[in-house]
């Protein structure tokens, strides 16, 4: 098997795992919504989305990765301690998460990946 074929198989496995991963992200978001000042819950959501952004980007799912990074950008000031996490920040993640879920249903891989 060529190296590129093996890499593509890993990418396909990533796509198959996406529904479960999105469920994990949704659960982390719902937990944060119920306790929007909890920094541990914020970090948990951030890292789950960060991992999705990194993996999807590595596998060439650029649009998905960019959407995930939009969520990271919303949370980042609070992650860095520059602002206090509040309901407004947490609520603004919701629509972006909905967009991410749509993309997760049929993620598009860039043509020149590999």
């Amino acid at each position, binding site marked *: 098997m060529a190296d590129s074929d093996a*890499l593509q198989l890993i990418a396909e496995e*990533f796509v198959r795992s996406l529904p479960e991963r999105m469920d994990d992200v949704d659960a982390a978001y719902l937990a944060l919504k119920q306790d929007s000042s909890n920094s541990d819950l914020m970090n948990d959501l951030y890292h789950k989305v960060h991992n999705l952004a990194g993996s999807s980007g590595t596998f060439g799912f650029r649009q998905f990765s960019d959407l995930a990074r939009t969520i990271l950008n919303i949370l980042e000031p609070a992650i860095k301690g520059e602002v206090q996490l509040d309901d407004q920040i947490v609520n603004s993640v919701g629509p972006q998460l909905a967009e991410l879920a749509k993309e997760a249903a049929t993620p598009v891989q860039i043509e020149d990946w590999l």
Partner: protein
Amino acid sequence: MADGTLSKILYVEDEPDIQEVARMALELVGGFTVTICSSGEEALAAAADFDPDLLLLDVMMPGMDGPTTLLELRKIASLANKPAIFMTAKVQPHEVAEYKELGAIDVIPKPFDPMNLSANIQEIWSANIGG
């Protein structure tokens, strides 16, 4: 500072998907010998015995992040001067400058191209170390 040929890479990355892709990219495509650690703590436990030529570290990891991991690895005498490269999506010029101030010879942007990762690392090695 190390010199000579790049052969052994210690890679610290928490995300299993990226570990898998990077292992293929570095071992199969690049022909390097690679030890992958899922956390800074794991790297601290494994690094001295592995005796890598190069430290390759993800920046953003839960718990001990890449920069902190590098600082801790530097406290191990045999690793004090090992070349290090960070991997991160944050590659604005001021961010790259910060990573270099921490002792990295360069930064590889994420997401990386699996088929070119090894060549990219080799170029950085050659430009900074030789071999």
